[in-house]
């Protein structure tokens, strides 16, 4: 924009700096000395304008290249709703190792903080254009007839690595909707099986051999997500400043949404009480 106000400059083959004269300048009846003075003054003004414009352009470029301001979103997800009973399964296969019964906790609440473990906090949005280092594999282990972790979060392209540490055979069957992502046999001491996450969304993980084994993998197209720890705490760093829509997901309690404004170079706190199960699932 700024460059357009400067008279066009040419560097002729002889290396002499000049500018293209306009028709009004060439027709002006001036003496040789006056012309020399005028030309000298024109050069000075032109040069000044040129360097000023160059400076502005450099500053503009610097601004464009500067990292956008970011902040950190942290806080705690809590649940104070009615108790939700755990699921209890009779184990009819490999019970000598897996036990006679298996219990799946519906919600895990921290006694002191009332924090909800295993909730996934994420920012709504599309794929990031930021260059990201290759993330380490997302390890999903068959361990004591359950999946560890129960909730895993990763970024599209990240390798899911399936392991079996049990002395019994499992099959790890991961799907998104009706389409299988992978279904592999995992005998004792199997070598790990890896596959990159293809698309964002919620993947369900099960073992057809042991129906009580359940887990979820949530994949995102950007790095702005976090899963709450045993106290319900989460932290999402390096979040671009501004308003964001946040989604909170829990495998039993469902999905809720919240809007937050992230301040630059600072911490933004969000503490949220999960509504009870029925309310969370309402559209």
């Amino acid at each position, binding site marked *: 924009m700024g460059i357009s106000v400067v008279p066009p400059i040419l560097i002729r083959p002889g290396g002499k700096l000049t500018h293209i004269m306009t028709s009004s300048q060439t027709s002006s009846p001036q003496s040789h000395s006056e012309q020399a003075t005028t030309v000298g003054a024109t050069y000075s003004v032109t040069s000044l304008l040129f360097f000023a414009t160059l400076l502005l352009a450099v500053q503009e470029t610097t601004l464009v290249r500067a990292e956008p301001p970011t902040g950190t979103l942290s806080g705690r997800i809590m649940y104070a709703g009615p108790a939700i009973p755990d699921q209890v399964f009779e184990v*009819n*296969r490999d019970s000598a190792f897996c036990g006679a019964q298996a219990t799946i906790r519906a919600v895990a609440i921290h006694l002191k903080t009332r924090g909800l473990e295993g909730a996934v906090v994420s920012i709504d949005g599309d794929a990031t254009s930021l260059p990201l280092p290759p993330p380490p594999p997302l390890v999903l282990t068959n361990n004591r007839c359950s999946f560890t972790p129960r909730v895993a979060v990763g970024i599209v392209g990240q390798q899911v690595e399936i392991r079996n540490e049990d002395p019994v*055979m499992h*099959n*790890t*069957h*991961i*799907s998104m*909707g*009706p*389409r*299988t*992502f*992978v*279904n*592999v*046999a995992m*005998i004792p001491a*199997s*070598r790990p*099986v890896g*596959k990159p996450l*293809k698309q964002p969304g919620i993947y369900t993980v099960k073992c*057809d*051999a042991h*129906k009580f084994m359940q887990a979820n993998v949530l994949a995102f197209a950007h790095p702005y997500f976090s899963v709450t720890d045993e106290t319900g705490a989460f932290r999402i760093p390096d979040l671009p400043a501004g308003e964001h829509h946040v989604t909170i997901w829990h495998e039993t309690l469902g999905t809720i949404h919240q809007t937050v404004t992230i301040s630059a170079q600072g911490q933004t706190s969000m503490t949220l009480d999960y509504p009870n199960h029925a309310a969370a699932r309402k559209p």
Partner: protein
Amino acid sequence: MHVTRLKYVAILIVMGLCASTAQAVKPPLNRDTLTEGRRIYEQACAWCHGIGGEGDGPAGWFIGRYSSPRPRNFVKDGYKLRSTASGELPTDQDLFKVITRGIPGVMPSYRSLNEQERWQVIAYLKSWNPAFKEEQPVPLTFPSGPQGPTEAGIQNGRNLYVKYDCRVCHGDNGEGDGPEATAGHLRDTYELPIRATKLTDPSSFKNGASPQDIFRTLMTGMDGTPMPAYANEFAGQEEALWELVWYLRSLSGQEGS
């Protein structure tokens, strides 16, 4: 031994010729192909798979309503019968093979369509699922030249059958009456009850009953069912997998190829 090898070389040549013949008449993907594919689909396939390809055709609504398999939903389902790794889409050749052969007990063979018509239908049904535009299915490598069964190999195959818990679904003698099957625990992706394949009846094998077909099925698994892929378990130990194949063949009194 020499004769066996020659036999497999001949099979491979014939398979290669079939594949190249099928490929030769594959029409280009354009509007004409899709229009013709749609016309054929609506005559031959929509009755079960639905006019929009969602597995909800007038007959399909009854087929598999209460038990698996349900007609495939071409819009969003995965595929059982593939030469690709678990979770991957099938290749065009895989789809061509299914349409040509049919699926025993489930879907008729469509050899009545000429090859070009089968390719046109494939182009049309693929157009419903955007994943076919985004992904490039790559078939697994299946080693050729099985050495044929031996008593020791079949016995080792039996050991693998036990080690890999095949009998839990398919039964101790392959009758499809393993404890998981008889207890009704086997479910497909829609939670519909599913039967374990009766390994003593090769005519019921959905993915084919030749040694190569069985080998491929073990490697790829049957997506959307509890049958997992064993490619990882047998990577670098393909000879052992062939022994399991020979054992499975022996359950129906078949030997070799």
